[in-house]
């Protein structure tokens, strides 16, 4: 049976999450996004042309090492906790349909000058609205500064 009780989302959970992330040492991460005008040439599809990724800042975020057992030779994994308010701002600005669409377009995340690959994404919700996104990241092997 459907729950017909009245719920008025007021953005409280989003504001608390943002405040907690900021208070917990919040920093800025940059999603590596493809340019708005993609490269449709042959050279752009065979790795000849530079992709021209754009940096899309997300703040506040908290970056920490994930508690996962490490295998021999495996790169460490990290978690990025992202404020849903920051994500919503970028989704609106880029006129995307959802946060999932935003993360699906990203080729990686740069944090503190290092590139990380997105392994998985989950959202915490309150009253049907996301207030926090959790990205599981793996360190990229390339050591070039971002």
């Amino acid at each position, binding site marked *: 049976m459907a729950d017909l009780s009245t719920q008025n989302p007021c953005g409280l959970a989003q504001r608390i999450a943002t405040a907690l992330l900021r208070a917990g040492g919040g920093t800025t991460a940059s999603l590596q996004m493809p340019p708005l005008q993609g490269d449709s040439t042959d050279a752009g*599809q065979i790795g000849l042309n530079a*992709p021209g990724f754009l940096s899309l800042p997300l703040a506040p975020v908290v970056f920490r090492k994930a508690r996962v057992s490490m295998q021999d030779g495996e790169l460490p994994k990290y978690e990025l906790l992202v404020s849903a308010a920051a994500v919503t701002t970028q989704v609106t600005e880029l006129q995307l349909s959802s946060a999932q669409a935003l993360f699906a*377009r990203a080729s990686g995340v740069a944090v503190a000058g290092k590139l990380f690959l997105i392994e998985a994404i989950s959202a915490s919700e309150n009253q049907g609205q996301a207030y926090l996104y959790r990205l599981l990241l793996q360190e990229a092997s390339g050591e070039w500064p971002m």
Partner: protein
Amino acid sequence: MQNAKDTFYIALRSRLASVNPARTMTLRAVARPGILVSEAEAPAAQPQLDAFALSWTGMQADLQLAAILAQMTCEIQYSTVGTQANAGLDRGRALEEMDYEVLHLLYPYSAQKMNYTVNPATAMETMVFWSEPEFGPVVTLRDRLSRTAKVTVFAFQEQGEQ
């Protein structure tokens, strides 16, 4: 050898556009036929659904001939979860459609080798040719069906070619 890999991909991409014009994807803000070279795209945790991903794995060179004959293994990986309209219950049919398309993409088993590092691309002197596909078993992960078809691609290394 890179010219052979580029030629193989562009040949299959052009054929896919005529075999099934509806199989398209949007990758890096470009709508294009649903085929990609894995090593030329950003690494992804999940495979692109309903698209063909080429991965270059094995490599051998025959040095006994007048020109070096490179023999490279290309794995064509593809996955599907079916369609939303059929609640994914057509995923077996969707995979079979992709199997059929692989057969059509690969035939004829050759293409003129091209150099795509110059603009416009120029034809080279030899052909790139390849074997019939060797289909692997279906791999099921939850509602996703995947298959890998292996193809051996042959190309002569031409004078001055890197």
